[in-house]
C-alpha cells in the first residue's frame, strides 16, 4: 500500500503519573477504510481515541496528517487540521436541545455580533436530515434530541459529521446502548460513510459487529498494539483469541 495515510500516529506514549496508558503505539488510518480498534477494558483504546481527537496530549511521539507532521494541541485543531470528529457511546448530543441546535453546536452560523441565523441553520438542518445519511422517523429539525431513539441520535451525530466534511470519524462504542435493530442501522451508516469518503475507527467490544463493517483490526492490550491484520487475512476466532489473551 503506497497511498498516503489520512492520519498516522508514530511511537506514541502517554503516561498518567506512573500509569503508562499508551506505550510506543503506532496507529494509522488510510483513506476509505473502517478500522476496528479492539481490546479489553483498560487496554488503552479510549486514551488513543482521546489522543486522536485532541483531548489528550501525548508525552512522546509524532503525528502525521496526509503525510505531513503536525502537532495537535486541542480539540479544535484536531477537527480543523485532521478533520476528525468523535462520536461517543452516549452520542455527542444534548438531549434538551433541538436537532438544529445540536447540529450547529459550536459551529453556529452567526452574524458579525455572534447572533444566530436561525433561518439558515434550519434550512441546512433540514437538508442534513433528508440527504446523505438517511435517518428514518425524523421529520423536523426543531424536534428535541431527547425525543429520539438511541439509534436516531447516533444517526444525527453521524450526519452532522458528514455535513461538516469530516474525513475521519472516531466512534467510541457507538452501539453499546442500542437495540439490535438500531445497531444494524448504525453499522450500515458506517459502511455508507465510506461512499462519502469518510474513514472511521470503531471501538467496540462486540467482535461480530466489528467483523460486519471493519476492513482492518487493531487489538490493544496494556497500552500496546499487540495485533494488526486486514480482514481478508484473519478470522473472528483469531481476533477473539487476541482480545482475550492476557
Amino acid at each position, binding site marked *: 500500500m503506497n497511498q498516503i495515510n489520512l492520519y498516522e500516529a508514530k511511537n506514541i506514549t502517554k503516561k498518567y503519573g506512573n500509569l503508562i496508558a499508551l506505550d510506543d503505539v503506532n496507529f494509522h488510518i488510510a483513506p476509505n477504510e473502517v478500522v476496528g480498534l479492539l481490546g479489553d477494558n483498560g487496554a488503552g483504546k479510549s486514551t488513543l481515541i482521546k489522543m486522536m481527537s485532541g483531548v489528550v496530549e501525548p508525552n512522546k511521539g509524532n503525528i502525521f496528517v496526509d503525510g505531513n507532521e503536525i502537532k495537535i494541541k486541542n480539540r479544535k485543531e484536531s477537527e480543523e487540521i485532521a478533520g476528525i470528529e468523535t462520536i461517543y457511546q452516549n452520542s455527542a448530543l444534548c438531549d*434538551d*436541545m433541538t436537532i438544529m441546535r445540536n447540529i450547529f453546536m459550536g459551529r*453556529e452560523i452567526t452574524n458579525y455580533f455572534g447572533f444566530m441565523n436561525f433561518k439558515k441553520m434550519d434550512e441546512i438542518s433540514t437538508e442534513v436530515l433528508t440527504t446523505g445519511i438517511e435517518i428514518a422517523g425524523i421529520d423536523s429539525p426543531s424536534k428535541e434530541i431527547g425525543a429520539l431513539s438511541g439509534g436516531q441520535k447516533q444517526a444525527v451525530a453521524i450526519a452532522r459529521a458528514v455535513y461538516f466534511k469530516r474525513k475521519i470519524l472516531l466512534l467510541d462504542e457507538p452501539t453499546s446502548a442500542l437495540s439490535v435493530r438500531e445497531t444494524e442501522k448504525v453499522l450500515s451508516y458506517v459502511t455508507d460513510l465510506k461512499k462519502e469518503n469518510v474513514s472511521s475507527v470503531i471501538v467496540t467490544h462486540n467482535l461480530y459487529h466489528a467483523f460486519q463493517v471493519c476492513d482492518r483490526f487493531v487489538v490493544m492490550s496494556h497500552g500496546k498494539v499487540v495485533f494488526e491484520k486486514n480482514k481478508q487475512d484473519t478470522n473472528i476466532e483469531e481476533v477473539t483469541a487476541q482480545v482475550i489473551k492476557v
Partner: protein
Amino acid sequence: MKTFLDNLRTKSAGGIIILFVSIQVIAILGGLLFPDNFRYLLPANIAVLLKSMAPLGIMAIGVGILMITGEFDLSVGILYSFCAIVTATMVKEYNLSPYLAMLIGILVGITAGLIHGNIVNKFTIPSFIVTLGAMLLWKGGTLLYHGSKSLRYKYESESYEILLKGDIGVVDASFIWFILVGIIFYFILHHHKIGNHFYAVGGNSEAATAIGINPKRVKLIAFAIAGGCAALSGVVAMSRVGSVQPAGGLGLELEAIAACVIGGCALMGGRGSIIGIMLGTALIYTIQDLLLLLRAPGFYFDMFVGGLIVLAAITNVALRKRL
C-alpha cells in the same frame, strides 16, 4: 389546539406559563368579583407588586443562566449587599458620579463571579461548595469593610431620580430595569451563540467538549453574568429604598434559585428560559401579594412558595412526559 398545547409542553417555560396564567385569571376574577375585599386590581396594589419583584428578578436571571450552564453561585445574595455598599461608598466618600459608582459596583460583582468560576474550573470542585465558602467569605468581608450598620444612600440628581427612582403610572423604574435586563439576556441566551453554548455545557459537557466548545470558558462567562446581575440587583434595590443593609441580601440566593426552578430551569443544567425565570419571579411575588390581600399571616408565604417549588418541578416533569 393540540399543537399549541404540544408546543407549550415541550418548552421549558410551558409549565410556568400555564401556572402563571391560571393564577392570574383566578386573581383577576377575584378582584372583579370582590372589589372591596380583595383589592388585587387596585392601582396601588399593582404598583407595589411590580416594585417588589425587580431585585430578585434581576438576580434570578443571572442565577438562572448559571444554572442552565450547570453551576450554582450561592454568594449572589451577599454580593447583592456588598456591591450596593461599594457603590454607595464610592458616591458618599469619593464623590463619584452615581452612574460610575454603579458601574464599579457591577464590575465588583463580575470580578467576584470570575473568581468563583476560576476556582471551580481550576480545582474542579463543585460550585456549590466553592460558592458556599465564598458566601461566608463575602459576608465576613462585607462586615469588615463596612460594619453591621445599615447605610443610607441618597443622591440628589434629576436624571438619577428618574432613571432609578421614577415611575410611569404603576410601573416603577426598578421594574423597567428588570424588563430591560430580561430582554438583553433573552437575546443573549436564546439568540446568541454563547447562549447555545450555555445550554450545551449544562446539558452535556462531554458533548460540548467533543465538539470543540471550551466548557471552562463558557462557565466563566456564566459566573460573571451571575455576579454582575447580583450587583445590579443590589444597586437597583438600594437606589429605590434609599438604604442598604449589610446582611439584607442573605437568603435571596435561595429565593433566586427557587424562582428559576419554578420557572422551569433544570437543577443540573441544560434547561431553562429567560421568560420562565421572569415568570417564576413574578409568580413568587404574586403569591406573596395574594396572601397579603387575603390577610394571611406571614409564615404562610414560605409554606406556599415551598409547595410551589415542588409543584412546579412535578408539573415540569409531567408535562415533558406527556400528561
